[in-house]
């Protein structure tokens, strides 16, 4: 059913901290290895050892240089499905293969219904849809729907693979519909933003922008060092210090 639920009970999603991401690709391959055997298996790789290798990946990390009058910085930017509240990728789907879950807000594809028309990928401004040319269907991030509720995993492992893997703790998971949740709090505290808010898709995932240098670390208000003006210079100072 490609009509959207009027509201979802939860808004499960990710928060990605661009201030902390070092671009190590841990989330990328953790996602690939979980999902290539998971709900949408396989994440096919075409020409895997050749010159035109092209695989299905649900999570990709870009690198940008952001230059402002404050100076320049390099920003590593993981990009995956944002599980929007207004996902046009769902509503454009002619077959009902794309849908948004009423319970948790996860946007999924029912592969058996997908005809591979690719329109959902055209409708997604974020490039979250991944076409598997081998199977002829569209695939996408499932928010690890087969992990986060998986009775066969230890309770503590029921988080998306990318969140579990991230070595710098730059990825967070939770219910963004619950303002009291830890993840919502994090978004509030850090001024999390939507991507392309002007398009009205209302993404669930948020990005925490890199903090300005002055605000992200305790500022070291170090007074300038003053040369020792005492008699005998530095060595004289040592003598006095040691005789104290």
């Amino acid at each position, binding site marked *: 059913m490609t009509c959207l639920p009027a509201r979802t009970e939860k808004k499960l999603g990710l928060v990605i901290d661009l201030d902390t991401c070092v671009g190590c690709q841990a989330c990328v391959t953790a996602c690939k290895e979980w999902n290539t055997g998971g709900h949408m298996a396989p994440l096919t790789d075409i020409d895997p050892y*050749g010159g035109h290798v092209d695989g299905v990946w649900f999570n990709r990390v870009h690198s940008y240089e952001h230059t402002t009058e404050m100076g320049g910085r390099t920003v590593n930017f993981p990009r995956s499905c944002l599980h929007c509240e207004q996902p046009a990728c769902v509503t454009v789907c002619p077959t009902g293969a794309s*849908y948004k879950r009423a319970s948790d807000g996860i946007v999924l594809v*029912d592969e058996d219904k997908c005809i591979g028309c690719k329109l959902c990928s055209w409708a997604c401004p974020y490039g979250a849809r991944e076409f598997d040319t081998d199977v002829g269907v569209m695939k996408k991030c499932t928010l690890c729907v087969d992990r986060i509720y*998986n009775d066969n995993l230890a309770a503590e492992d029921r988080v998306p693979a990318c969140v579990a893997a991230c070595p710098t703790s730059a990825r967070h*998971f939770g219910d963004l519909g619950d303002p009291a949740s830890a993840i919502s709090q994090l978004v509030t505290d850090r001024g999390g933003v939507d991507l392309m808010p002007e398009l009205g898709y209302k993404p669930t995932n948020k990005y925490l922008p890199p903090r300005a*240098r002055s605000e992200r670390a305790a500022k070291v208000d170090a007074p300038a060092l*003053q040369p020792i003006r005492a008699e005998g210079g*530095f060595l004289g100072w040592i003598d006095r210090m040691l005789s104290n």
Partner: protein
Amino acid sequence: MSRAAPRGANSAPSQRPLADSRAPNEGDGVETSPSVFDRIAKTTCYMCACRCGIDVHIKDGKVRYINGNKDHPVNRGVICGKGSAGIMQHYSPARLKKPLLRTGPRGSGEFREIEWDEALSIATERLSAIRRTDPRKLAFFTGRDQSQSLTGWWASKFGTPNFAAHGGFCSVNMAAGGLYTIGGSFWEFGEPDWDNTKYFMLFGVAEDHDSNPIKIGLGKLKARGAKVVSINPCRTGYNAIADDWIGIRPGTDGLFVLALIHELLKAGRVDLDYLLRYTNAPVLVMQEPGSADDGLFVRDGDGNPLAWDRVAKVPVNATDPDARPALSGTYTVNGRRCTPVFQLIAERYLDDSHSPDAVATRCGVDADTIRRIAAELAHVAFEQTIELPIAWTDWAGRRHETMKGRPVSMHAMRGISAHSNGFHTCRAIHLLQVLLGTVDVPGGFRFKPPYPRSAPPGPKPAGKDVRPMTPLDGMPLGFVCGPDDLLVDEAGKPTRIDKAYSWEAPLAAHGLMHSVIRNAWAGDPYPIDTLMMYMSNMAWNSSMNTVETVRMLADKDEAGTYRIPFIIYSDAYYSETVPFADLVLPDTTYLERHDCISLLDRPISHADGPGDAIRHPVVQPDRDVRPFQSVLIELGARLGLPGFVDEDGSAKYRDYADYIVNHERTPGIGPLAGWRGKDGGAIGRGDVNPDQLQRYIDNGGFWHHDFSDDQRYYKMGNRAYLDFAVEMGFIPEAEPIVFQLYSEPMQRFRLAARGHGTAQPPDAERGRIEAYMDPLPFWYAPCEEETVDLDQYPLHALTQRPMHMYHSWGSQNAWLRQITSQNRLFIHRETASRLGLADDDWVWIESINGRVKGQIKLIDGVNPDTVWTWNAIGKRRGGWGLKDDAAESNRGFLLNHIIGDRTAADASGKRYSNSDPVTGQAAWFDVRVRIVKCAPQEAGFTEPQFERFSQPPHFKPSPDILRFGASFRMKREAAE
């Protein structure tokens, strides 16, 4: 505190599972609880040298997925980009399948398959002949080897001094710089106090040791709002998230650090108390130019270094806890002039040549920034001190009610190391740390056991006496303390094939693997018979001057025989080096083998306690391959090497697993420290425990011991720690470790250069020894800059491994290579504009050693005088299971082609290894280049190009499509 943290690194409230993780009743038919494993095997990763704990999930007999072990002290549940892609390494199409014997010319890749018995017989016969005649004619060098305590011991028992691992071209400068100064080092042998530091400086680190721990640590700093300052020409990775990025000019970090020291000294912002307690700053240095002991320490009759008691005004034992030593002044002891080390330090670094203004231009960092950083360091170290309420007792028995800390920490690696001035730069950074009183204090840089050890640690390199059928009298690698310890003949000529521990590389603690092929080819200092190598891609990205190296490997003499007569190589994969071997011993993947990550070698210790780990086969090989260590043990037995055979001549160890459990290096101390003793109740020292491996497996593949609180800091002078370290066999006696700001061993070399002592350098070497064996850290221009016309070659060229491929040889990995299969040359936008270059242009990158062609990408985040690229992406056609049209061999390029393996000729015409003159560390990052836009018809493909290798017998073409994981789903859905 890391120790009290919840299970796993990613366990913030915003990273936990849903409070109610029961599946909602969505009714969409999604199977939310598929069975994803039949069993979990906990072992140790080997996708890089980081040694993380992994949980390998096995489903239907195949590896379904790998994730981090939450209990593991190294990675605490996280896993990096390589770790998760281990599956694709394990199932790589480039895996070797059977022993191979060369049939075609060397380098052609033409082989026939042989049985293991034949392979071992060939090797045994050859090696046996060498051992009977001249054991030096075996050169045994290992690459990314985590079993050096075995391989080194094997070489020692064989009787050849010609052994080392790849440390010489990796980061020996960091190891030696640290071990000769503070008795520990950066690398993975120490770590910042991530939980307490407030100011973190990162020098020259892209992805490097320690991979995941640094990332976890940076995450902690970010969460706490501690300041991160990076000093790096490139603004990638860790440097991208630094609060301050200082895009320094390559090779000038030492200058920058000494300017910081200048500022701190000038302002009197150094920790005098710390210097007195833990360093040789008060030790008196003889100031008698021309005499044989000039610059050596003044010692008492028992050999104890003396200090000057400023109250009693007499010389005293410098380590006497009751002494009140002076740090400055000139004194006369036994009629001879001397002065404390610290006075020498102050005199040298207070000189205006070290002022920020004097170095700013050369460093590419403005003077105000240098002054600001110095002020911030001082401010945090001295005004934001922390104090942990932990009482402890120092080595002299003095009780302290708290542990005081100066929360400034530093980490440095390859960017410092891979320059020919890296040893001294590394020492300069340690000097800075020590002056601020931040080594092994709360908030500072912390040692991981078994470090600290005395600076330098005890054993000297063996190999002075090499005789047929006779083991060496020690391990081939060690630490020299003066010219007498060098491995040279009467004429001062090197006696090791790599010239380690010679006048050309005196402190070569890790050997010079990068010199072996050239020296063996040239027969300099002597010809060898067999070169045996393990797991190192010396015919490609692990060598400098690749084109020439490849030529030397296949070169023949006038008689038509190969100049390196026989090459045995062991590797798991069809790398660029395999085709140059005469005999190929196929290794297993890391999931198919036993290993031990030993305290005798490179353990998994944490600053809060020692640890070690194992690998064990979690899946069985489907090919006729054997783990190299087991093969080596069998070779040892076939050769009858002492230690490898019982008295009756039978093999002492069944295989590596058997060795791991039953080998004792000294009584009670073996490869693994956990669960020793008959009942498994002992740690460190204890009888062999036959169940030891099982105990490790039961514990998740590792052993870890937590220090008591009072052992956690000040390990260099902490009674409780030192006693423990002795008990564990880390150090011989519970003496304090004194930081050697002034290195007396280095001064001994200088004295030799001045004609003193019996071990004398050849005259041609005196100048170098005098210049570079300075007992105090100093800065000099990287050697290449001394010989190259800098106007002709105005740019520095650097490489870094991408984080997702660091140490992982990822081009055969279907997932990792998708991320980077073509490397670009990154160049500063303004520099490019000056050179008339646009994005995506193809250019020649030219050095004095040759030229290589690649495609550029313009960026802002790089020092304007520096270009850089991702290393080891360019591959040779025919290797690694890649297809002929792979980007790696068509568009990717290898910078190694233009990095010389030797320096340009000096005035006397002599060419040295392109290495640090102190340690022999390969100077990868010294290379200077110019960039020239290539002609239009030259664009689009890399050069030089190499002939394609043949494929070994029974190699199937790599698949055109990979559907890994489909079988899990089919099976799952069929079961539903």
